[in-house]
């Protein structure tokens, strides 16, 4: 997993609420092999519209998604994270996220940041006028700097933060705690 520390990049603004993982990558592409090229299926059907912001700069080169509430709700497909990642995205900012997507993202070097609705609206407002403006995310400091200089401090579980900063994955850590799992299995009534 790639390390994540500081990211300063333009954003893809998708102001709608409830953008689901079926829109991020439609079901008919879920069998496509995970070879680093899933970015071509990202927002596949929405991209058929020439004016979809991913089709032209700065959206095409964006590395951060800024979306409305409940971003990436619906299906558990981890392909949604992989498609975003393969396209070059490393973070998403939204008032809230689908729970399963949120967990999947953190396990793939992708940082989802929940931000207050009013601040999210402010950010979307700034990007509506100047979509090329960059957003700065500082994970060690746990801050997001909006284009207008407003700084938002965000919360993140310390474990997930360490994994992102050091490029570690959770599986190795869980394997290191196998003795506790074995002990749990021994003391537990048979079922």
């Amino acid at each position: 997993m790639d390390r994540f520390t500081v990211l300063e990049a333009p954003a893809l603004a998708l102001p709608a609420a409830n953008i689901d993982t079926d829109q991020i990558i439609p079901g008919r592409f879920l069998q496509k092999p995970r070879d680093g090229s899933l970015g071509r299926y990202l927002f596949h059907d929405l991209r058929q519209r020439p004016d979809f912001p991913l089709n032209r700069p700065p959206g095409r080169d964006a590395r951060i998604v800024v979306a409305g509430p409940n971003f990436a709700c619906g299906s558990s497909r981890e392909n949604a994270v992989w498609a975003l990642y393969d396209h070059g995205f490393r973070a998403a900012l939204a008032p809230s996220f689908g729970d399963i997507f949120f967990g999947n993202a953190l396990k793939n070097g992708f940082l989802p940041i929940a931000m207050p609705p009013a601040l999210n609206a402010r950010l979307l407002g700034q990007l509506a006028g100047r979509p090329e403006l960059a957003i700065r995310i500082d994970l060690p400091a746990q801050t997001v700097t909006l284009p207008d200089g407003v700084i938002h401090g965000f919360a993140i579980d310390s474990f997930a933060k360490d994994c992102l900063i050091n490029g570690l994955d959770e599986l190795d850590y869980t394997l290191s705690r196998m003795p506790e799992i074995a002990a749990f299995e021994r003391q537990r009534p048979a079922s």
Partner: protein
Amino acid sequence: MFDKIWSRHSVATRSDGQVLVYVDHLLIHDGYAPAFDVLRERGLRVRHPERSTAVPDHYIPTTSRDLGSIADPEKRAMVMSMKRDVEEHGIQLFPLGDPRQGIVHVVGPEQGITQPGIVLVCADSHTSTHGALGALAFGVGMTEAAQILACQAIWQRRPKSMRIWIDGQRGPGVTAKDIILAVIGRIGASGAIGHVIEYAGPAIAALSVEGRLTVCNMSIEAGARAGLVAPDDTTFAYLKDRPFAPSGAAWDAAVAQWRALPSDPGAAFDREVRIDISGLAPMVTWGTSPQDVAPVDGVVPDPDTMTDPAQRERARGALGYMGLVPGMAMGEISIDRVFIGSCTNSRIEDLRGAAVVVAGRKVHPKVEAWVVPGSTQVKLQAEAEGLDRTFKDAGFAWHEAGCSLCLGTNGDLVPPGQRCASTSNRNFVGRQGPGARTHLMSPMSAAAAAIEGRLADVRTMMERR
């Protein structure tokens, strides 16, 4: 009840407060290739093969049981690699052609694998279904599934609790699907993010286990981690004598344990919602989120009357995609396709309910209508009862079990611009195919729509009998 299950499965706590939760059973479908790839890359074995069950559902054809008939080599490879992976690790498989095969969320309860008090996980968001039997059941991604295969446990932040108390009595033609659509309409698609919902109250107690499975199935459509219903005599009667349920003395011991699971009176929840379903009409969606619901005898809402600007904008977009005009009667919406199936509504009671509406009638000539039973067991049972004849005589296509048109991974799709009355769980943009327009509803309502060629109030159709 959630607290009891959670604490009994807590193995350890991490510095950030996340809990390592023991997983009693992992369900596997034909999309797990990325999870087994992780094991292969790291040279890991499955810790407890006996704690997993595999069944193909997403990529299989529903017109035959022949893998060779899957035209797309990548889709065929998904089913083949599942077979190879689970055989390599000694995991039990209900393969294509096996009488136990079906949609993973139909098979688990049907086989008695899903039991009260267990933690059950599957890399599929509709794993919430299994909570209907009092299991803590939730969906995960493939990376997490790989971890469960290797370790039999998974890190989770303790979710918040929400109780949805449902009062009142369902009228004729009103089903569990209508209840859960009304719930999502009320709390919204993000209303339960971070929560486990416990459904309770007289209207839930009165539901069969199959109805409760439908309700819990769509918990995820309100954003919830999981849905739960307290196990009761209805649950025990359903589970008794199922192939994987305990038997003999073990059954009595299990029931005694299960009886102690329900929440204590006075148990506190982080959030409580009460809904009275007296007088509830059959519910149908008009938009592109499961929260976009209206009574079938109502009208398409007018975005201009919505006070929240974001909501107004979203509703306008949804109506544009759906090709609908504000104020139009729901009953005037004509349809092209009908899909009775999916892990939400493909069980025997669903098919019986639809068959009552269909019996002696004909599918509207412009409509293509399918029944896709949720499992081979459901299909065989329906055929034993003659329901297949009822459907086929009316002009329905009678399919083999699988996920099919709910999400189209197997190639079953609704053509662009066509409108489908569907008993599935998601009316998302493009869910049933690019440009496809989905209206979610109950099997009875879908049957009524098939006959009338438009959305129709099943209550008036039943009165005409």
